[in-house]
């Protein structure tokens, strides 16, 4: 197969080709690396590459494949689904011997001495990690503009953001650098960039994936999840990283189903899953600042689900409006403590100016970016004596109410369907001076984190030639229903014209004259 063609394959297609002996893991990796080298300058999806480590892993994968091929069909079938498949890691997954910066200057030069749980799991599964992807600093942001290493562009329109905070992984998957990527989602950081880049992204149930080795933003909200170019691929990746880990006391001892096998390859069979499925449509998710084009695509998608046999029920989630305020108290409060360890004493960026306090002020003053400082201050304020009850404690009470909203809705429906983001990708720099406008990007996603539920975003068409995301929200531990819905929606829209469209600016990525996102930002300013 030609190199360029290889990068177009989805993960399950790569897996089949590897088993058939049509391609080697080494060839898949080299195709991926060649494409990254050729196109990443104007995109800036990657924070760092580990070409040597990836080549070693690819060789090992090829040896496993050869051994299994020699041992017969059963041995081949028993191989992990991710064996030999390139997977991007967000730059907050700690891996031994490689940089992990979380998009922050304060972690410049930090090389982890251990592997995150998911890095171990991916290595066991034989996945190949070419490198780590760009992100908003400490995952705080919805545009990937808040990276100390410069912003990332959206391959559908390089003047626009890819969403965030996991914008690097979303852009890398959308630009055919890799078929799969890892993101983290605290308030929408997987689903929103998936929507804005036209790929599939899932935020699992809180506790589904171990957070051990994931640089923390907000501990009670952070979850790790997959990006893919279709639902089956995303399910395969989640399956590889999910499950109880003794090192994360909040990871749940709940069995992980074999989702990838459950999901039908055949479109008719997959679409059949919709017949009689009860899907709730929350009224409160279609308000305030939603772009008409986005609402139109989402309503069309809901109509398509209904015509395929789903029962659509309007539901109320009455406390939705309080989600944003609740989130912007709890998340910064936890972050203000989680980020206290970056003090220049043991690792990373360190400034020495006078006494202990002087060192702290210089290190943290210059090591953190403006958005991170804003959230540390918000969180510190919300936890301060005299304000704790009015802010943090009240937010926890509202959190309970928001959970109760979802519980009530799930008494009558199997899942909810909603927009992922109220808008399509916005121009680089457009919301940098207006934090609240930026925070509103996550209005439809962050209630799901507050309630600890799983949420899936799948592409549902274009508005102004930019991707729109459709969000499915499920009961706790019911990622399976979301995968079935996503797969069914793909099946009933398999012939849609927009599915055949590539990101519009893919061609420009290969032009050396195309400016980098940082240059675009500088010009904009």
């Amino acid at each position, binding site marked *: 197969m030609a190199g360029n063609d290889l990068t177009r394959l989805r993960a399950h297609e790569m897996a089949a080709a590897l088993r058939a002996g049509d391609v080697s893991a080494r060839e898949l990796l080299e195709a991926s690396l060649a494409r990254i080298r050729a196109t990443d300058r104007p995109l800036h999806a990657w924070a760092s590459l580990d070409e040597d480590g990836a080549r070693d892993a690819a060789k090992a994968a090829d040896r496993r494949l050869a051994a299994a091929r020699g041992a017969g069909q059963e041995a081949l079938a028993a191989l992990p689904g991710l064996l030999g498949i390139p997977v991007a890691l967000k730059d907050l997954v700690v891996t031994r011997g490689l940089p992990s910066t979380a998009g922050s200057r304060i972690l410049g030069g930090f090389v982890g001495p251990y592997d995150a749980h998911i890095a171990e799991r991916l290595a066991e599964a034989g996945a190949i990690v070419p490198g780590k992807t760009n992100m908003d600093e400490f995952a705080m942001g919805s545009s990937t503009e808040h990276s100390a290493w410069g912003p990332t562009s959206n391959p559908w329109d390089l003047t626009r953001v890819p969403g965030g905070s996991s914008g690097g992984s979303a852009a890398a998957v959308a630009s055919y650098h890799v078929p799969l990527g890892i993101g983290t989602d605290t308030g929408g950081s997987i689903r929103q960039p998936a929507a804005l880049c036209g790929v599939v992204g899932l935020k699992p149930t809180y506790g589904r994936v171990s957070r051990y080795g994931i640089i923390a933003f*907000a501990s009670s909200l952070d979850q790790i999840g997959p990006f893919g170019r279709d639902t089956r691929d995303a399910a395969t990746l989640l399956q590889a990283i999910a499950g109880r880990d003794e090192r994360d006391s909040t990871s749940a001892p709940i069995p992980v189903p074999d989702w990838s096998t459950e999901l039908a390859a055949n479109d008719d069979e997959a679409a059949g899953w919709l017949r009689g499925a009860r899907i709730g449509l929350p009224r409160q998710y279609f308000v305030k600042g939603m772009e008409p084009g986005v609402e139109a695509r989402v309503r069309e998608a809901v109509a398509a689900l209904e015509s395929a046999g789903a029962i659509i029920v309007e539901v109320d989630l009455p406390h939705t409006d309080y989600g944003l305020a609740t989130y912007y108290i709890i998340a910064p409060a*936890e972050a203000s403590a989680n980020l206290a*360890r970056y003090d220049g004493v*043991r690792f990373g960026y360190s400034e020495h100016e006078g006494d202990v306090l002087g060192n702290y002020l210089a290190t943290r003053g210059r090591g953190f970016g403006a958005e991170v400082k804003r959230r540390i201050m918000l969180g510190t304020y919300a936890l301060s004596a005299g304000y704790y009850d009015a802010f943090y404690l009240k937010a926890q009470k509202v959190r309970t109410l928001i959970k109760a909203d979802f519980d009530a809705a799930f008494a009558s429906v199997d899942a909810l369907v909603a927009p992922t983001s109220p808008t399509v990708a916005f121009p680089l720099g457009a919301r940098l001076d207006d934090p609240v406008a930026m925070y509103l990007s996550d209005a439809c996603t962050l209630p799901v984190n507050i309630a600890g539920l799983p949420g899936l975003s799948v592409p549902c068409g274009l508005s102004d030639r930019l991707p729109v995301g459709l969000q499915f929200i499920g009961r706790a531990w019911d990622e399976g229903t979301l995968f079935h819905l996503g797969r069914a929606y793909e099946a009933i829209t398999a012939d849609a014209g927009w599915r055949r469209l590539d990101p519009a600016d893919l061609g420009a990525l290969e032009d050396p004259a195309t400016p980098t996102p940082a240059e675009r930002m500088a010009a904009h300013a």
Partner: protein
Amino acid sequence: MGAAAAGAPVAARYEAVIGIEIHVQLKTASKMFCGCSTDIKDAAPNSRTCPVCLGLPGTLPVINRRAVELVLATGIAIGATTPEFTRWDRKNYFYPDLPKGYQISQYDLPLAANGHLTFDTSDGPVTVGIRRAHLEEDTARLIHATDAAGRRVSLVDFNRSGMPLMEIVTEPDLRTGEQARRYAEELRLLLLAIGASDAAMEEGQMRVEANVSLRPVGTDAFGTRTEVKNMNSFRSVERAIAFEIERQARALGAGEVLVQETRGWDDDRGITYTMRIKEDSDDYRYFPEPDLPPLRADRAWLDAIRAGLPELPAARRARYRDELGLSAYDAAVLVGDPGATAVFEAALAAEPGLAPKAVANWVTGEYLRLAKGAGEGSGAGASGVDGAQLGRLVRLVADGAISGTNAKQVFERHALSGEPVDEIVADLGLAQISDRGALIGIIDEVLAANPGAVADVRAGKGQASGFLVGQVMKATRGQAQASVVQALLRERLGLD
């Protein structure tokens, strides 16, 4: 103020109000939230560390079950209540010895609350309320040094980071330095009995801080308090608090205004000194630790811990008095030293028929004399003592197989070397000969060799009898039992 009060000594016009906070390192194999060893005493700096206790990015805590059990056991032992569920909280502050920038501690739901402890003082028994006991992690250790270039540097040793700590806080119920010392001593005995901690103050395994304030006798409002630290022995706890009471009383008596501050105890100079003045209260911004789920202490778990508790010091003293017939003083001395308690128990277990008082005399006398003689608390002078062997020795004395004087010699050798008592007795040839057959032969030889003395005895001269006994003892190298020799002599001379 009346004339009488004004004329009274300054200290007598005030009542001291003292509360004690004690941190103890728990005796677990691994640290509070990671798998690192707690055996850090002689470890090279930073050799007992991992990504978790270094606070590296991405790491998460996992609760040490054993540490929780030790605090629950302590709570049960002090009659505290345990909440149905408990949780951890983050205590936020910046310092280089605190790698995460917060300490995982417990704020409003401690593992134990509202307990109490009773102890004896020179004025009789005192009961102190214990407000709470909670579980937290220790900080790293800072070492201030000068580097090769002569610059002052601060080094951090993270071996101590994440060691499990129990903090025990009393109500402000104590009134004197002696009460504070006795409370700390009694708590230490309790913790040793439970096996919760080795609680060695000089090793930093038990750190005592006192809050001291004064108020005019007969009033209820609290005065301005100071927090006293750096008390590294029980004796310094008593001395430091006594000094602080005196200092505050003198200041108040002179019309001075006290400031709320932290004061250090200088043991050499015998004074407290200002360490840090608290201008406003610290805001630690406590909030529930989101990385740890709440912990449920269910009934079955608590019952199992309760069932596993050993005999506690108070109950042991009562048993020694009521069942073994020991004096309150002997009971207090025996229970007051865990080594003595162990030796006493082992001796009685090995020789159940012995009189407890006889064993107690040996332990409170010879054992403690040797144990304490080798340096305070170390017990090196009695390091070889095996309680069962002491039992054997007391048995030999009771049976008349060895003299009391020789027994002390045997014990001293055993205490150093640990050799079995019987072997020492044999080696030194100290066994008393009380066997009639063996003695009669020797006596007959002595009588045959000393006809003059025999005649004197028959004539009623008592001194001559003593001479003959002495000759028998000489012939047996002191091993003959004198009373038996006396009786046999009279028998052989036909005097009975």
